[in-house]
């Protein structure tokens, strides 16, 4: 009941704002809706960049989390430096560095430059999420597995990893949502993802506000779908 009231309240607030704004800014939706193919194209690129970056950043996170837990001091330091650098640099700067810096040497196109920048950035967060997940696994279980004569590799794949994933799932899904939103920054190197397409439609129709609103609604829709399905998976995986 309280949820319905809250939703109704938000809708009323938005409607009131819309009316207030339309007094000074004449809305023109017809112009923008005509360009729906461009929005769909942009949405597709956003999803493509996000999915590819998600896969790469997950593996980066996994590798560096293992580095940080390793017995070799060199690998530990490598992991710490990676996390330190990418968590303390703005994503926008990383995208520019990747495209105009590294991308110039390797002739990287805009799509891959965005994917690599996003993967490196989000990978640093994934590292910390997965590492804390692994550390939360009961030490007693690991010792028990060891005394049963399991190899370190077996312990990782059968004892640590399945539990760590279960523990890390909620923050991982949060990170996934962040990744989709962060991908909008790739518009700075003219990648034609959702935000850039929205800006293009906005300038072509001179109806920027309408265009930005559509972009916002599309982002909220995909991120909500992910959060919602994430919650279902969490419930499935949670131990009784």
């Amino acid at each position, binding site marked *: 009941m309280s949820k319905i009231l809250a939703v109704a309240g938000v809708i009323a607030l938005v409607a009131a704002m819309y009316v207030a704004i339309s007094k000074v800014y004449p809305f023109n939706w017809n112009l923008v809706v005509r360009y729906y193919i461009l929005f769909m194209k942009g949405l597709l690129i956003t999803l493509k960049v996000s999915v590819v970056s998600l896969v790469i950043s997950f593996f980066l996170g996994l590798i560096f989390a293992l580095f940080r837990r390793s017995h070799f001091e060199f690998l530990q330091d490598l992991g710490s430096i990676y996390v330190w650098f990418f968590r303390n640099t703005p994503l926008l700067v990383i995208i520019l560095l990747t495209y105009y810096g590294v991308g110039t040497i390797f002739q990287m196109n805009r799509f891959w430059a965005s994917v690599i920048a996003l993967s490196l950035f989000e990978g640093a967060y994934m590292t910390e999420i997965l590492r804390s997940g692994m550390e939360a696994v009961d030490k007693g279980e690991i010792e028990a597995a060891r005394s049963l004569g399991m190899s370190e590799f077996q312990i990782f794949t059968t004892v640590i990893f399945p539990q760590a994933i279960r523990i890390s799932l909620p923050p991982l899904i949060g990170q996934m949502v962040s990744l989709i939103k962060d991908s909008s920054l790739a518009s700075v190197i*003219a990648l034609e993802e959702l935000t850039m397409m929205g800006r293009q439609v906005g300038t072509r129709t001179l109806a920027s506000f309408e265009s930005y609103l559509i972009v916002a609604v599309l982002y909220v829709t995909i991120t909500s779908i992910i959060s919602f399905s994430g919650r279902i998976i969490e419930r499935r995986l949670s131990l009784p």
Partner: protein
Amino acid sequence: MKRFLVIAILIATVLTFASLLEDIQARGALRIGQDQGYMPLYGTDEKGERVGFEVDLAKKMAEILGVKVEFVIVNWDGIIPALISGKFDIIFSGMTITPERALKVNFTIPYLTIGQTVLYNVKKFSSPPKYSELKDMDKLTISVQLGTTGEFAARRLFPNAKIITLETMDEAAFQVATGRADIMVVDSIYAQYMAKKYPQLASTGELLTKEDLGIAVKKGDLEFLQWLNTFIRWAKTSGLVEELKEKWGVEAE
């Protein structure tokens, strides 16, 4: 009686309606909306000061009004919404007068006439490429500034090309300089300026369009528009425009 009331209300609205002109003088500052840079019309020098042809004209405008001049820098694709929502008083930012834009804002009479031209990399083309050659080229990548008449001209005149949209003019020119785009479609005066400044860039000089630049103001304030028109006409006949063109190397009508 009714008619009297209507007339009284009309007179009251006319009397209480203050023009932006008075607001500006009361505030003591004229706020100019521009995007990051379009040399030689406007840009930022090494010390962070705004400089250029339009900056000098705006300063003269403020001097006559007896106020300070303030530059508000926004992204090009958001410049019209920013004017409508009152972030500044005028767009004095090399804006081409188009009937589509005139549905949202009012334009003054033109102060410069320019055209879209092609900026290219001398490493890519040994001689200036003609439009007729470029038009049918396979896999042509064109960089443009997002939301400019350059973007619209490129989409119309090069239907087979891949068009990449950058936030600022300089970023779009940088794509050509580093070989990420083959050509840039841009205002002729900017192309000439860049060709002079950087040895690897050159302008074909071929004008693909003809466009008038004007100052844009919010709709509904004809008083202010009238003053701006008077200012432009005066700047032209008094020789100020010619003098500033000479100073900044603006080659346009």
